[in-house]
């Protein structure tokens, strides 16, 4: 309407707006030009001649093109509406007070960054119970710590302090690490990678791993990890499920052409393969990105925030196909930050992870060190001699290791051969800790507190012993809940946990989520546990590993522990074997130094140690080696169950 009249009364049609709209808009006050200074000079001829350039009034336009004035008013107003963009006010928000608009720096809103669908789907998976989220924030268990922020702070406050200690005696300081991360983040950005993108990493525990992880975090991207033994099949499954946009890997991973393998797969989301080492056709050299001139800060890339997803990890579960576990800085870094105090670590510590960084336990070591600005002693590939030598050379004060790592060093007498007296804390996790081994380690390392930690990819460090608990507790239990965590024993003796460190749910796996949580929001760990009178939890087995022999249920853990103590057995595992009559029977898998060993001999051994006949294994399979997770835990799901066994 114009002047209270509608379009029908005015006589304007859509065709008229189309026909005259552009002309009216251009010669109206919306576009004004002036040549010279005719008004100030009162040059009336020039004023009259340039009327249309200065912007004509509606009446003058009407007279010029043969419309009524009200028709011009109506059409001009419609054109102004069509041309109007509501978001231009945003351009002012960063200006003034010394900041000036620069056309070359300004990007129109419609061209600005937006999360792609995959990234939004992952962000959507970060759904926490609102009441719990409120509680965690209120308690300070969740804050705005990010890896990027922590690194920046340490680089500024103690830039010369060692961040990474490498076996060849190289030291990367926090300031140097910041600079390397900044450059690599800039390089990754140049590949078109950014906020919300999933970037996979398959590397040993080398400096490039840490730099890549921090650069991914700096971008606000999400790291997903591949273990070093992973090959094409795992690549295809995990890179596909995670929707990874890039992979950082070795050109040659011990004979496996990782980069080439990734490039050969049909993974439409995978845009870039970044290879460390010899040039690979089709892959981007890591060194080129790491040597980028313009870093993330110079590019003005926004800093991530704690609620952004930062990790998408696949479970090392031994009984199920991989499940994707998303974490953000709230859940992930908070656990490390709270753990630092509980483990009594400080900025002068030298922290070493025996497990790979691709595993959550390895990342836990990094996170703790980044919270306090401590040094990380890198062990690229675990061998017992390398581990002991590195502890001695790097004067490690805290060691995170799997029981198998520790056991191997003990068996080989490496703590006698190397000076490991600097160790003051060892945190054992990844699988059950045999009591005898814990005591033996404590005896060999008298200055070192041997502690246990129970955790999962979903829960991180959920339970652990504290320094000062004493070997009686730490050899027999996983201690008490981490700060911010709660634990309880549910039906059937299952350990259930919740807390600020808990993941929100599996990504893109509603079935797994339905099974993973109790109706009141506790995570079902699948582990069996008991609790002593002081509140310490001991892990006694896995629910799915319970043997149900004709209705008689028992946990094979104690049988396995006993078998492991047999002089001819180095590793054992007992799993249920389908049976037509009893439902299940126990099948024993073992790695033995005696190829002639037989089932009866083992049963006699067990009976001599007071094991009930109903718990004896009924079939024996000897293996050259066990299928192991990166933390040296036996993958029972991959043990080859015998078929056609006569019950």
């Amino acid at each position: 309407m114009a002047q209270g009249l509608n379009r029908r009364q005015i006589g304007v049609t859509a065709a008229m707006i189309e026909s005259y709209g552009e002309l009216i808009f251009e010669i109206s006050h919306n576009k004004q030009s002036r040549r010279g200074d005719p008004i100030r000079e009162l040059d009336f001829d020039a004023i009259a001649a340039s009327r249309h350039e200065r912007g004509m009034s509606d009446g003058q336009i009407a007279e010029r093109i043969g419309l009524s004035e009200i028709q011009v008013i109506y059409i001009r107003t419609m054109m102004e509406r069509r041309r109007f963009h509501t978001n231009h006010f945003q351009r002012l928000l960063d200006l003034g007070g010394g900041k000036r608009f620069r056309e070359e720096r300004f990007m129109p809103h419609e061209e600005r960054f937006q999360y792609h669908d995959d990234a939004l789907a992952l962000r959507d998976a970060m759904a926490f119970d609102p009441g719990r989220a409120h509680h965690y924030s209120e308690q300070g268990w969740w804050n705005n710590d990010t890896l990027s922020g922590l690194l920046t702070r340490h680089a500024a406050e103690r830039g010369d302090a060692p961040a990474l200690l490498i076996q060849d005696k190289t030291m990367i300081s926090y300031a140097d690490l910041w600079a390397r991360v900044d450059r690599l983040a800039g390089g990754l950005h140049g590949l078109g990678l950014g906020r919300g993108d999933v970037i996979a990493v398959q590397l040993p525990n080398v400096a490039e791993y840490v730099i890549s992880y921090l650069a991914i975090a700096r971008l606000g991207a999400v790291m997903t990890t591949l273990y070093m033994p992973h090959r094409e099949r795992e690549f295809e499954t995990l890179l596909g499920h995670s929707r990874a946009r890039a992979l950082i890997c070795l050109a040659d991973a011990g004979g496996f052409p990782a980069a080439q393998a990734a490039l050969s797969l049909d993974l439409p989301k995978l845009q870039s393969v970044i290879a460390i080492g010899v040039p690979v056709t089709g892959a981007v050299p890591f060194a080129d990105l790491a040597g980028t001139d313009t870093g993330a800060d110079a590019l003005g890339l926004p800093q991530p925030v704690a609620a952004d997803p930062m990790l998408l990890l696949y479970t090392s579960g031994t009984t199920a196909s991989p499940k994707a576990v998303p974490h953000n800085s709230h859940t992930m870094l908070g656990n490390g930050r709270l753990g630092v105090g509980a483990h009594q670590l400080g900025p002068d510590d030298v922290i070493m992870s025996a497990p790979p960084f691709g595993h959550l336990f390895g990342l836990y070591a990094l996170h703790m060190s980044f919270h306090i600005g401590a040094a990380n002693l890198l062990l690229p590939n675990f061998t017992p001699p390398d581990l002991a030598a590195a502890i001695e050379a790097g004067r490690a004060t805290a060691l995170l290791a799997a029981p198998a790592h520790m056991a191997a060093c003990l068996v080989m007498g490496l703590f006698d051969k190397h000076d490991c007296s600097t160790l003051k804390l060892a945190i054992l996790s990844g699988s059950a800790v045999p009591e005898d081994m814990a005591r033996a380690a404590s005896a060999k390392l008298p200055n070192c507190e041997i502690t246990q930690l129970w955790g999962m990819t979903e829960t991180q460090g959920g339970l652990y012993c504290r320094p000062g608990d004493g070997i009686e507790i730490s050899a027999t239990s996983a201690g008490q809940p981490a700060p911010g965590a709660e634990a309880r024993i549910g039906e059937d003796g299952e350990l259930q946990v919740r807390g600020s460190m808990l993941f929100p749910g599996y990504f893109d796996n509603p079935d797994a989520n339905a099974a993973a949580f109790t109706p009141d929001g506790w995570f079902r760990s699948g582990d069996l546990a008991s609790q002593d009178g002081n509140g310490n939890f001991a892990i006694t087995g896995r629910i799915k590993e319970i043997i149900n022999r004709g209705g008689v249920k028992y946990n094979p853990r104690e049988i396995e522990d006993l078998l492991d103590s047999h002089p001819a057995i180095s590793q054992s595992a007992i799993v249920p074997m389908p049976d037509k009559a009893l439902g299940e029977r126990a099948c024993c898998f073992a790695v033995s130094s005696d190829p002639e060993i037989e089932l009866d001999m083992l049963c006699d051994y067990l009976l001599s140690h007071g094991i009930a006949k109903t718990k004896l294994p009924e079939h024996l399979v000897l293996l050259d080696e066990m299928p192991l997770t990166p933390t040296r835990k036996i993958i029972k799901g991959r043990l080859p169950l015998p078929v056609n066994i006569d019950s």
Partner: protein
Amino acid sequence: MGEYNVANGTKFDATEAKQTVLDYCLRKGALAAGVADLDALELIAPPGHRPSDIMPKIKSVISLGVGGQTQGAWAVPAKAMGYFGSTETRAYTISYGAAFFIESKYQTPAIYCPPDMDNEKGPRVPLQSLKLHAEVAGIGARSLAGDILLHPEFGYMYFASIFTELELPPDRPMAQNPCPAPSCVSMYRQAGRTPCQKFCPVQCLSGGIDEAGKQAEMHYDMAACAEMSQQYEAVPALLERAMAAEDGQGREEALFDPDNKMLWYKMSVGSGGLLAQCFECMRVCPIATKASLADPIRRSKAKAEA
């Protein structure tokens, strides 16, 4: 012109009356005041927007300017600048008082010229061009910054006008245009753009300077300027977007996202924000910000030195 009679038969000297009226304006806070040539205005202003369209027996148009931003105001972030532009109300107050002064002293009709928009033609069309009055009255000259008027001493001012049937001798427009300043000419020679052209957030200004250092061309895309600064335009746009949204979430986002919610706030309080310009062109203008009497601090110093 000279001595003439007003309604009650009293005789006044026109020149003296003019000085008396202008002195009143300056005494009340105007930095500059002048009388525009009515014939010129009637020729230049388009039909419907001429002084006589409002006041048929008009004889004179008095224009006055008050100080623009303070030094402090130029230092604030752009998003806050919209709240520092209310000094134009001081100009209206003075012109309102001047109209009363003329009527009481000279017994001649006078009005305070309405500064608002023409409600028949929309919010971008003023009833009268206060800018034209001021320019013809010689208290400002058109700049390369979208024809914003500048004064060589007072820089950037807000203007108001008084219409009266009292016949006063007119002033002449300024002999020289202070825009472009020498530094702007120098920048234009080097970079091809003046500060106002370069730093406009929506790049609505362009033009050129001739070899003599004078304005050759000025182009102003008022539509682009309005897209950013005239937020009342956004209200119907986002209502339309809300109505066209496919679902409830889309409607919610259209109406309640923080930016749009700010519009409702501004509507409800009836002030604040930007209703005319964003000031970025003036913030970088050496005349607007650094003219010898452009702000109260400079004026105080000049007064002390004098």
